C-alpha cells in the first residue's frame, strides 16, 4: 500500500494519515508514515513524540558539487532504520523536518536527504511489503514538484466547502497527470448526505470514503491527542477502518476499487 494524502489546509489530511497508519499498524502491517509538511501536525495525529530537530540532518553531507546528498553508506533502508522515529502500534515516522523560527534554510540538508530517500523507496525491495502512508502539506505544490514519487494512490481529503472543493479539483488534476496513479477523493466533515452528494457532483466522481463530522476529532485536536487513542469508538475511526479495508484489498496490479 503506497498512499499519499493531500487536500486543502484544515481538511483533515493529518488526522486521516495518522489514524490510517495506526489502524494498519494494529493490524500487524509494517507501516512507514512519511511526513513532508514543514509545519507540525502528523505526529500529534499519530500520538507520537515529535523529534526536537530533524533526524535526517545527520543523514546528509555536502558533495563535491556543493549540493547536499545522502552520506556514503546511507540508502533508504538505513535512513529509515536510523532516522525514523517510533509511533504507537509499531508505526515508524520519517520526517522531512520542521521549519525552525529562523527559517527553512537551517533544515535544507534534511529536506534534501528526505527527497532523495523518498525517490528511492518505491524501488527498494526491502519496503515491498510495507505500507507507505504520506501526509503532504496543504495544496498541490508538493505533488507538482514530485514529492510523492512512491505513491500509487493519492487520496484527496475534501470537505463540503467551496474552497476545499476548488482546491481538491486542482490537486486531482495535478496528481492525475502522473501515469498509473489512482486519484480518489475522501469526503470529510460530512454532516448530511447532501454534503457527500455536493462533493461528488462538483468533482464529477464518487468519493472513495465518507468520513462524518465527528466532535471527537475537534476534542482530540484541542488537547493534541490522536483520535484513535482519545475516541476509540468514534464514528470517524470506524470510517477510517473501512477505508483501510478498501485500501488493503486494492492490489496495485488490478483496477482500483476506490474509483469504480
Amino acid at each position, binding site marked *: 500500500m503506497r498512499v499519499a494524502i493531500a487536500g*486543502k489546509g484544515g481538511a483533515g489530511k493529518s488526522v486521516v494519515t495518522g489514524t490510517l497508519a495506526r489502524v494498519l499498524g494494529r493490524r500487524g502491517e509494517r507501516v512507514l508514515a512519511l511526513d513532508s509538511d514543514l509545519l507540525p501536525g502528523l505526529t500529534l495525529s499519530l500520538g507520537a513524540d515529535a523529534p526536537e530537530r530533524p533526524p535526517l540532518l545527520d543523514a546528509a553531507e555536502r558533495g563535491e558539487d556543493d549540493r547536499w546528498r545522502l552520506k556514503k553508506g546511507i540508502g533508504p533502508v538505513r535512513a529509515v532504520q536510523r532516522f525514523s522515529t517510533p509511533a504507537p502500534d509499531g508505526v515508524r515516522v520519517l520526517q522531512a523536518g520542521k521549519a525552525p523560527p529562523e527559517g527553512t534554510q537551517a533544515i535544507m540538508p534534511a529536506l534534501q536527504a528526505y527527497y532523495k530517500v523518498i525517490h528511492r523507496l518505491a524501488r527498494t525491495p526491502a519496503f515491498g511489503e510495507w505500507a507507505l502512508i504520506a501526509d503532504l502539506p496543504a495544496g498541490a505544490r508538493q505533488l*507538482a514538484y514530485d514529492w510523492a514519487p512512491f505513491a500509487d494512490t493519492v487520496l484527496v481529503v475534501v470537505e463540503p466547502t467551496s*474552497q476545499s472543493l*476548488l482546491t481538491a479539483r*486542482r490537486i486531482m488534476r*495535478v496528481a492525475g*497527470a502522473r501515469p498509473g496513479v489512482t486519484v480518489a477523493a475522501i469526503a470529510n466533515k460530512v454532516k448530511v448526505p447532501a454534503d457527500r452528494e455536493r462533493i461528488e457532483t462538483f468533482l464529477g466522481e464518487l468519493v472513495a470514503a465518507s468520513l462524518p463530522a465527528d466532535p471527537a476529532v475537534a476534542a482530540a485536536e484541542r488537547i493534541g491527542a490522536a483520535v484513535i487513542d482519545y475516541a476509540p469508538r468514534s464514528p470517524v475511526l470506524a470510517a477510517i477502518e473501512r477505508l483501510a479495508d478498501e485500501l488493503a484489498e486494492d492490489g496495485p496490479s488490478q483496477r482500483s476499487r476506490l474509483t469504480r
Partner: protein
Amino acid sequence: MKIAVAGKGGVGKTTIAGTLARTLARRGNEVLAFDADVNPMLGVSLGVGSERTEQLVAVRQALDEGEAEHQPTVEGMEQAFGAAGPDGVWLLVCSRIDRADPG
C-alpha cells in the same frame, strides 16, 4: 496600511483577508487584495464566486506563458493582472499551481 494574514491551513486566513478588504473598501479606502497563496482562494472570500476565481489571471503563469509583460509598478500590475471585485477591491493573484511540473 499594508497587512499580511498568516496562519495554519483552515484557520480562516482567507476569510479574514477577504472580509477585511471588503470592509476597508466600503469605508472608502482604495484596497489592493493580493493573493500570494499558490492555491489562490481569496476571490471566493471576496465574493467573486468559485468559477470566476478559477479563471482569474495569475501573474506568474501569465508571464511564463508570454501572455504579459513584466510590470515594474504596482499600478501597472493592477492594470495588467488585476481584476475588479465587489466594493471596488482590486484583486491580484500571484501564482496558481494547477498542473504537474510547473518548472
